[in-house]
């Protein structure tokens, strides 16, 4: 079950430091896809012809670096979220 302090809109206004951190980690996990999307949408605004156009190799390196960064970030966040008390796993059996 979700602890009362973890649930948004619960009566508690201030959380202890740990809980506060945990909630921010969750926020980060939620925001990561948005960050990744923005970073991967950026190639859309690159000039495609003429001066300042991006070479294919650079583009490739950019995209794969973003990829690697996102994977690392997700890995880190998933590690941090590992000990979040999970809601009742299976109440059925």
């Amino acid at each position, binding site marked *: 079950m979700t602890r009362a302090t973890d649930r948004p809109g619960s009566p508690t206004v201030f959380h202890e430091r740990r809980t506060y951190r945990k909630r921010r980690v969750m926020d980060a996990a*939620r925001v990561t*896809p948005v960050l*990744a999307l923005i970073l991967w949408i950026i190639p859309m605004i690159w000039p*495609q012809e003429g001066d300042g156009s*991006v*070479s294919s190799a650079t583009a490739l390196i950019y995209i794969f670096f973003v990829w690697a960064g996102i994977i690392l970030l*997700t890995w880190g966040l998933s590690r941090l*979220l590992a000990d979040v008390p999970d809601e*009742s796993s299976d109440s059925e059996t």
Partner: protein
Amino acid sequence: MSTLNLLVAVCITYVLFLFFVAFAADRLALQGKKAWLRSPLIYTLSLSIYCTAWTFYGAVGSAARNGFEYLTIYLGPTLVMISWWWLLRKLIRIGRTQKITSIADLISSRYGKSSLLAAGVTILAVIGTTPYIALQLQSVTLSFSVFAAQSDGLAAQDQAQLAFWLSMGLALFTVLFGTRNLDAKERHDGVVMAIAVEAVVKLIALLSVGIFVVWGVSGGLSEALNRIDASEFGEWHTDRSRWAGLIFLSAAAFLCLPRTFQVLVVENDDESHLRTASWAFPLYLCLISLFVVPIAVVGLDIMPDGSNPDLFVLTVPLALGENGLAMLSFLGGFSSATSMVIVAAIALSTMVSNHIVMPIWLQLRPRGASVSGDVRAAVLLARRLSIVGVVMLGYLYFRLSSGGEALASIGLVAFCGLAQVLPAMLGGMFWRGATRMGAFAGLTAGFAIWLYTLYLPSFGVGTILPMAIIDNGLFGLEWLKPNALFGIAGLDQLMHALLWSMLFNVVAFAGVSLITFPSPLERLQAAQFVNIFERSANARSWSGGTAQAEELMVMAQRILGAGEAQALFQRHARRQGTRGDLPAPTPDFLEALERELGSSVGAATAHAMVGQITGGMAISVEDLMAVADETAQMLEYSARLKEQSEELSRTALELRNANQKLTRLSIQKDAFLSQISHELRTPMTSIRAFSEILRDTDQMNPEDQSRYASIIHDEAQRLTRLLDDLLDLSVVENGQVNLNLREGTLRDALDRAVSSAAIGEDGVQLKIERDAAKEEILLHTDLDRLSQVFINLIANARKYCDAKAPKLVIRVMQDADRVVIDFQDNGSGIAPDAVDMIFEKFARVSDQKAGGAGLGLAICRQVMTRLGGSVDYVPASRGANFRVVLPYRTALAAQ
């Protein structure tokens, strides 16, 4: 031995190896050694089912044709995977809690277990997946023909035969390992393990080719990058709309494709695996796509013009004489194709059998789920047939469309079709207001537009859609052209279809959801889905009012198998604390049972089956009933208490009255005793005194002697009378009296009584009014006793009537069943507080005229009781009124 034969040998060996892996995994799972079979690593690798032969071969082809666009196909799923915390976690929790068996089941379950929606999504999935399976068959035959080209080439006939045997083999594998257990919720350990192995094979194959190309051919990383810059790729240029659109499309497809849904949600064994997969699967995708561009560049460089770029992964190593590498690459492609077909067939067969075959089958059966016949066998058969059917459908599609289109485009067409499920799915997960009608409208709109603008044209211009429609629009309407809806031309065909289908889908879904009202079941499911983390898992309640545990047991045995069903029922019986093996059909149990059945036959079918037995009540009233029961019990209890207390107070009142009566009687008795002792004493005294005078006086004149003797005589008589009365009463009371029944008229009895009692010893004449005519009633009774009663009453009136001219009215009345004789005098009557005492023994109303012993009325009452009648004091307007009632049969019997 030719290359082709070697290839076939390798293929067969590889397939046998897969069989072995799957078999071993199933064995291990049976032995309970599931720990490493169900590790996060295996889960992550099994997700690679997303990367099919299309990815393996087609990505390079796509890169060679469209540059970096191929990346979008991997970026989309990566975005989905890193959204695990808010999206996939919820999806998997819903899947586990609701025992979801497929994407169609998810949609159906969310929207009130709608069979129609489930069937619709299933059809959509079949239509969308069939070309995809064809694609896999095509890629395998193509790769075969690449090797064959080295020797003597592969005839079209051989290709078809190859594809046929391949699909048969895959169907066999899927039937063997995909339908071992009916419970679709149970992991297909063997299949998953085989897929994981294949995932490793295809990754290693692609990486090997990539490493060979970069370090072997190009001579290092920087050289490879230079080569890219120098090639046709040159500068970054992609179609911007396709870049964004394809990222969205691939993300949507990753969620909605039946096969990815199968491994992502259905085969998920532990939610925590998702945490690992969230970064590990993006890593896998990243690695898979890492060397695609270098391979494409080298391929374009060294291969002759006009060679198929889709096969560069295979042809480049071959062209460079690396036969071993080429073989590995071939195996990678083969793995991709086979694993896709296997999982797609499992996923689709589950959907087809649960949402199309079983509902129809159940409909066709006259009495539904509990008639004889083995549903379990039917479900298994349906699933197996569906597997074969799905694979054969793919084969047919392959034969009909043989080799026309580039591989990648069929994949994207399928993606776009299945993405139509996305709004209903996400809407169902995050928006409680989404309704079944909305989902249906959205799906229909999106599906229709996809069909019209993308799917049908994809068969080639003029094949299914006639040229006239493509040139002039449907019905000749310009704005209905399949590639330029609403006159907006110039868009890429895929993007055009995606834009309009998703737009209409979302608008219809949201719009119709807003204006329709969901059924209670839908609303319940909506709350369950949207608030899955806040609620404990309870799908929807059954009221088990009419459900029969035996019938449920019979049905469950047919679906789950006897052993499993018995175990389930016993478990619930134990939990409920019932004796024996059958639990009571409580809502909890029915819910659990329905979920268990649902994982075998789908939620809607299970719902229908349980519904048939339980009588179809979908509203949970059990708890309300329990509360109402309790309340009713308490009310009843308090009502009983109230009743009891009333009864107690009534009894107490009676007791008090009785006590008062006893007290009065006691006082009366004391008074009577003193009275009777006085009464007895007085005559005794005079008898003793006069007898002493007679004894002791010598010369007494005869007159005195006679006078004294008569006084003694009189007094003795008085005593005798008193004693007679007492004796009489005790005789009558003890029922020892013998009635002398004879016939006579009431008049005679009254005459006798009046003549003997009307004139007292003191000579007071009581005036008596009678109506002789009415007295002519023939009686059959003890007339002497009756007269005695009358005498008593008349004498009482004479003695106690305090009027100046005492008068007694004797009225005789007759009604249906009795004769009533009233004796009413004109005195002051009897005081009310004395009324209930007058018939008691020794009761005397007053001491004023101490005439009798107070036994008269008591004797009367006893006599009348003996005669079957009664005598009562009836309050009258004036005077005392005694009423004698004789039962009529006494009278009638005499007539």
